[in-house]
């Protein structure tokens, strides 16, 4: 891993973020008709439309608008929410801790379950535990997240009353959303752990370790697992940035006031600056997640270089 490799990679991240900004900017402004009347989505007088247009700077040419938005974004100013009348950055800063808490919790549950069940599958290949956990992980990747959430609400709130129905600030009320959000990730981590570990278990160095007197369990945990973790760590970094930015459904079902809910509010109230800001922020998180995944991979495996 060279310094120039990392610098090149960071340059790439900036280029992609600039592209995201341009894409979102264009997409929100090629609206058929006038962006302000779409935003208001009701009949208002032409004077009101003109007034809002001027106050939001939408009367200027598109390149001028883009550059002033870009300049603001670099300084940490993403404009003001039209509906909530607050700076977009403040709203994101308010919402982000909730999303972060949810993502950390979901990731811990998902990874613990995913890695352990993947290991069991690989160690007991083609026997009952393997089939059981493989079936479960398949459910993990194929069940829509809202179905998981609704089933959890039905079973653990309505039938057994173990956890509250929606988020109320308590620790317990984070459990159901975290399981719902982590469900898919657990499935994919389990599948990847299984295949990656199986590949390592077929390598000659495992036979050597066992010939030297190490038990099968010891060989799996001390040798195979460490090498098998490489692709899993990459996947985990990507999943985590995905959870931070893509929890729209979970946050909406469990009423968690996080980033996803903010984006949904933005689209429901037709708040263009807020939608633009949240999308840009999440793209930033994903880009950082991808970069971290690459760097982590290079740190863990000297054979890979960042560039």
């Amino acid at each position: 891993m060279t310094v120039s490799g990392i610098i090149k990679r960071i340059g790439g991240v900036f280029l992609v973020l600039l592209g995201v900004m341009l894409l979102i900017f264009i997409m929100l402004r090629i609206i058929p008709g006038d962006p302000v009347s779409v935003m208001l989505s009701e009949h208002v007088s032409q004077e009101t439309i003109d007034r809002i247009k001027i106050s939001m700077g939408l009367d200027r040419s598109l390149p001028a608008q883009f550059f002033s938005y870009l300049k603001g974004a670099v300084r940490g100013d993403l404009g003001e929410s039209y509906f909530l009348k607050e700076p977009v950055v403040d709203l994101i800063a308010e919402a982000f801790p909730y999303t972060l808490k949810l993502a950390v919790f979901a990731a811990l549950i998902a990874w613990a379950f995913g890695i352990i069940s993947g290991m069991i599958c690989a160690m007991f290949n083609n026997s009952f535990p393997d089939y059981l956990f493989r079936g479960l992980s398949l459910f993990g990747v194929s069940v829509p997240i809202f179905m998981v959430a609704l089933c959890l609400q039905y079973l653990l709130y309505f039938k057994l009353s173990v956890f509250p129905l929606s988020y109320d600030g308590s620790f317990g009320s984070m459990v159901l959303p975290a399981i719902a959000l982590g469900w898919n990730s657990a499935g994919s981590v389990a599948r990847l752990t299984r295949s990656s570990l199986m590949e390592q278990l077929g390598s000659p160095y495992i036979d050597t370790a066992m010939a030297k007197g190490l038990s099968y369990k010891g060989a799996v945990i001390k040798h195979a697992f460490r090498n098998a973790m490489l692709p899993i760590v990459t996947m985990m970094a990507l999943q985590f940035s995905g959870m931070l930015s893509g929890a729209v459904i979970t946050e909406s079902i469990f009423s968690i006031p996080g980033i996803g809910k903010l984006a949904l509010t933005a689209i429901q109230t037709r708040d263009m600056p807020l939608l633009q800001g949240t999308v840009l922020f999440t793209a930033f998180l994903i880009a950082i997640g991808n970069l971290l995944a690459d760097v982590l991979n290079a740190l863990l495996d000297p054979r890979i270089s960042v560039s």
Partner: protein
Amino acid sequence: MKVKDFIRNRMAFFSAVIIILIVLFSLVIPAISGFDPAGQDLSSRLCPPDSVHFFGTDELGRDVLTRLFYGTRISLLVALIPTAISVLIGMILGITGAYCGKWVDFMIMWLADVTLSVPGMLLAMVVLYSFGGSFISVFLSLVILEWGSIARIVRSSALSIQESEFITAARTMGVRSLSIILRHILPNLIPTIIVLFTLNIPTSILSESALSFLGIGIQPPGVSLGLMVNQSRQFLFDMPWLALAPAGMIMILVLAFHFLGDALRDILDPRSDI
């Protein structure tokens, strides 16, 4: 040979049968059930399942079974068409990038990176904000969501095919670029493309249902499985089947296409012939 492999692969065969049955039912049931998917009957609201309404009725007295298969029809349509379009776009751009290289490749991959670095749901939300919740905008948002990853995979497969000696031979013989692409690269990419198409269908089904569930995808009076789950959420604790039937249908469809895609990959993988 391939057909025999397909039938021998139990998972693929079983999934294909399930998909065919669901498609057949979704074509036939709304036509023969005798109920209109939008026909309201306020005198029989929220009926539990009985011999007339096998899955009961919803809050407006509409037959759930009819709506279930009608919604499946729409969800399948919304899944198939955008997937086909994104595979086509991804294929053209992926091959072009791989073949032209240099700045064309750079631009295409940059564009793919850009769309891939925005979370799918949020990117779709931006499209739906601009174009409203209609069929066409759901189609468009799914295409924008999916083409990037397809283009990347096609590009890397095309790059490895280009390294082959038969391509060098064709070039040395003076074959034109277009016919190298159409006659030599494309036929070798077909297995990859078929697998990509099959494996992207469940992604589309899940994305469409998620958008409709959030109330920003297909809008009423349209019917879609995600929208049905959303509408029956309020009755979850009293009549769970109203939400679970459409959600279960999504799950069966996703699983079936997933298995089919996996099996097709095994069967079509040229290495498995050796």
